[in-house]
């Protein structure tokens, strides 16, 4: 049923619903925190949840809306994290926390976006499997590159090497900023739940508005049929670049948020490698490809589950995979979907027409 209320289209109403949902959750969590109802375990998870939700929104733009498979998204997050942490470390003493963090986030996004653009030039001329392979390689290359960067600072200025700390020839009072495989330590703690939420909100609004615009429709037409889109005069590569770069910028924001939440930033395979990229892809797939709201919910749920299962000790790994499989089946099986719609979502969303087609 699509009985229009006012002048809003179904899509706008759905988008507004996503934004309201986020705002309500944020308000509820903030109130619970103020009331002291949130223990430190959950409290510590709030920023990571925002990071993963932003990554899910970012990857959903590429996979769900542009329709290209990127499995190197952790690489963009890595770039954003290191670029912003590098800046914060440089200016830790000379700037106030607020302007420094603001600029750090912008730098994280800009540098990641720049790399997204750069990678996009050759890569987006490829399709399907080839694109996936190249993005996979990109993520791995970034991680390995950062592991050989040595940047130090002393009274004479900045020094850079890929040889090792010794090759920098730092003066005794010098300080290492990026120390190769040991990464960046001592990034100031600037990330808060509020900042995370604002970044998430910005990402969501940008992506939803983009989807709902002339450009967004062009992007989706490329996803649905590239040849047809090209034949009606849509510059395919340009729009692909647009979506890919925006996605990289958002991933850079997530990286900046991540980097300023922990004192040690190391480009480990577990953190910025292939497995992480796949995890982001799982968020998108499980949330329903193309659905921004679904991707966010999946990111939140899948970040919380392994932590909430801590009481099961090492069995949590096993239970987590079982939950993942069950969710995947239930989420995609038409019978179970119909049942859920009839019995659960239908009660709350009567009249708006359930289903989150992208």
């Amino acid at each position, binding site marked *: 049923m699509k009985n229009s209320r006012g002048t809003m289209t179904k899509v706008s109403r759905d988008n507004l619903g996503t934004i309201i949902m986020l705002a309500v959750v944020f308000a509820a969590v903030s109130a619970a925190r103020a009331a002291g109802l949130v223990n*430190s375990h959950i409290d*510590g998870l709030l920023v990571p949840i925002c990071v993963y939700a932003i990554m899910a929104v970012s990857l959903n733009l590429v996979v769900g809306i542009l329709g290209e498979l990127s499995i190197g998204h952790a690489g963009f997050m890595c770039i954003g994290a290191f670029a912003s942490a590098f800046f914060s470390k440089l200016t830790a003493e000379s700037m106030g926390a607020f302007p420094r963090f603001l600029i750090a986030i912008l730098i994280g996004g800009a540098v990641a976006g720049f790399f997204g653009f750069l990678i996009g030039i050759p890569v987006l001329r490829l399709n399907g499997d080839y694109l996936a392979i190249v993005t996979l390689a990109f993520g791995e290359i970034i991680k390995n590159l950062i592991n050989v960067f040595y940047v130090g600072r002393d009274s004479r200025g900045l020094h850079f090497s890929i040889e090792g700390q010794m090759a920098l020839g730092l003066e005794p009072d010098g300080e290492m900023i990026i120390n*190769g*495989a*040991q990464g960046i330590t001592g990034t100031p703690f600037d990330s808060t739940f509020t900042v995370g939420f604002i970044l998430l909100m910005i990402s969501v609004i940008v992506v939803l508005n983009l989807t709902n615009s002339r450009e967004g429709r062009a992007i989706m037409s490329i996803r649905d049929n590239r040849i047809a889109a090209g034949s009606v005069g849509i510059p395919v590569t340009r729009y692909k670049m647009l979506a890919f770069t925006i996605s990289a910028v958002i991933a850079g924001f997530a990286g900046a948020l991540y980097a300023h939440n922990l*004192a*040690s*930033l190391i480009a480990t395979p577990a953190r910025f490698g292939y497995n992480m990229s796949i995890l982001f892809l799982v968020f998108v797939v499980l949330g329903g490809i193309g659905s921004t709201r679904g991707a966010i919910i999946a990111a939140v749920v899948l970040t919380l589950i392994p932590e909430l299962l801590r009481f099961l000790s090492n069995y949590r790994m096993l239970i987590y995979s079982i939950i993942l499989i069950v969710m995947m089946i239930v989420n995609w099986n038409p019978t179970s979907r119909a049942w859920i719609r009839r019995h659960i979502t239908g009660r709350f969303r009567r009249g708006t027409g359930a289903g989150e087609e992208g």
Partner: protein
Amino acid sequence: MMMKKMMSAALAAALAVGMLSVPAMADGTFKIGAIGPLTGGAANYGLGVVNGAQIAVDEINEAGGIAGAQIEYKYEDDELDSEKSVNAYNTLKDWDMQILVGSTTSGCSIAVSEKTKADNMFQLTPSGSAQDCTKYDNVFRVCFSDPNQGKASAVYIGDHQLAEKVGIIYDSSGVYSSGIEMTFEAEAANQGFEIAVKEAFTADSNTDFSSQLQKCKDAGVDLIFLPIYYTQAGTILTQAAMMGVEATFFGCDGLDGMLDMDNFNKELAEGVMLLTPFVADAEDEKTQSFVGKYQEAYGVTPNQFAADSYDAIYTIKAAIEDAGATPDMSVSDLCEAIKASMLKIEMEGLTGTITWTADGEPTKDPKAMVIRDGVYTAAE
């Protein structure tokens, strides 16, 4: 509406204040937590830490506890990830942990130290060896720092004139390995040997070392320094034997554990030297008893991580007794008391006789070991 909001805010504030004013501990036990990677590739280290600590805790509790107070002990997995390590810390905090033994690895330990600093909780890392781990005054460590090990190795090689030409094979993607390599290289400049070959590998390329070994062979080095973990060292030794590389192999505490590797030909390890504070084959009664208990409980020989964390628990006991601290003290008061006592105590542990300096560094003598006939023996 406004009234309602204000009411709820006031109620919320009252509740928050109420929660804060609840005394942290009153039941007369010290709550000690431990963190380490219990799953994944580095699980051996984390398991060593949590199990070693468990044995010490059981011994102490059996003997009447710390000044009459029993220890409650709990550990959490961090999967070798900084973020998860902080999550683990927060979980333990919700359990009312008062003292932290951990994290096991450097990166995680650094991330967690930022949190313990904010809470002013006493943190004793058994094995976080990077320099930055003890940046804050509430953090101490049991193991040698990486710079310390690199320097001690270079000095030992120089003093004993083990070599003229040295080759290094190290893991440039690992904090531990690159940390040692750096100070080794710096100290080598002051010693009577030259570094002829320096070859790196990364976590992604740690299964074939033939090109690195070939370079060492071509340069004719007398000694190959391996500041790496034993799994890769085992591969290097196997390949070196096949290629006919004739050099002494010299490593740090990471090589401990090599002899227990599955399918490893112990003959290959003949003559390998290592600087390590702990070996499971040591003859003294303390080590024997610890190794016996550990093997009985967990079915494996304890590694250096286990010994470090066993010492960590006893160190905490000694410091608490020295300070006369009681379990009902707040986390922050307890931290201040232990911190002051750490500088005064001398610890007779499995890993040597240890004293601490205010920057959190332990002072103890590294023992040089050499593998002869498949067992570790003290090198003279």
